[in-house]
C-alpha cells in the first residue's frame, strides 16, 4: 500500500474569504456604533438628570431665601429629579447586570 506524499500547500491558491475580510471591520464598527449609542444615551440622560437637580437646587435656594412663589414648584422638581435619578440608576444597573451576565457566559 502506497501512501501518497503530502503535497505542499500553495498559499497563493488559498484565497481569504471575502466575507471575513470585508465584514469583520464593518461588524466591529457597527458594534462600536451600538455601544456608542447606548453610552451617549446614558450620558445624555445623566446630563438631563444633572440639569434637573440643578433646577431643584435653585428652587431650594429660593425656598430658603423666601423668593419661592410656588411651593409646589419646588416639591414637584424634587419629585421629578428623585424619580429621574432612580430611573437613571436603574438603567445603569441593568446595563451592568447584562454585562456581568455576558461575562459569566461559558461555552
Amino acid at each position, binding site marked *: 500500500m502506497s501512501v501518497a506524499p503530502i503535497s505542499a500547500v500553495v498559499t497563493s491558491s488559498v484565497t481569504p474569504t471575502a466575507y471575513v475580510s470585508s465584514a469583520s471591520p464593518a461588524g466591529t464598527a457597527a458594534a462600536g456604533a451600538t455601544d456608542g449609542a447606548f453610552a451617549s444615551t446614558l450620558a445624555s440622560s445623566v446630563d438631563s438628570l444633572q440639569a434637573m437637580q440643578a433646577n431643584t437646587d435653585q428652587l431650594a435656594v429660593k425656598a430658603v431665601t423666601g423668593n419661592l412663589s410656588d411651593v409646589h414648584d419646588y416639591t*414637584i422638581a424634587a419629585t421629578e429629579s428623585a424619580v429621574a435619578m432612580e430611573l437613571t440608576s436603574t438603567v445603569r444597573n441593568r446595563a451592568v447586570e447584562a454585562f456581568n451576565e455576558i461575562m459569566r457566559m461559558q461555552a
Partner: protein
Amino acid sequence: MGTFGAIGIAGSALGTYRKWLDAVSDNLANVNTVRSTSETAFQARYIVAQANDSQGGDGGGVHVAGAAFGSAEGRIVYEPNNPLADADGNVRYPDIDMASQMTQLIMAQRGYQANAAVVDRAKELYTTALQIGRS
C-alpha cells in the same frame, strides 16, 4: 415635558389653582373695602384659565390667560356715619358675594388637592414602572 408628562401637566394646574386661591383671597380681603361714591368700587378679581394647546407642542396643561374684573359700580349703601359718605349719605361697597367667594375657595382648594394627588399617583406609577423585572 418628556418622561414626566403627567407631573408637568398637574404642576401647571397647581399653579393655576394657586392663582385662583390668590384671587379669592384678595376678594375676601376687600369685601368690606368702602370707597366714596365719586370713586369706582373695588373690583373683584377672577382668573381666566386657558388650556395649553397640545398642538403647539407644549404637551397639555393649563395656564392663566389673564384676570377678569367684576363690577366697578359696586353696591351703593346708605351709611351717613361713614366718613367717606357723600352728601346723600351713600358709600360704595364692592359687589362681592361672600358666599360665592367661599364656594370658589373650596373649589380652588379641591382642585389643588386633586392635582397634588395626580402628582403623587404619577410618581407612584413611574416608581412602579422602575420595579418591573426587579427581582
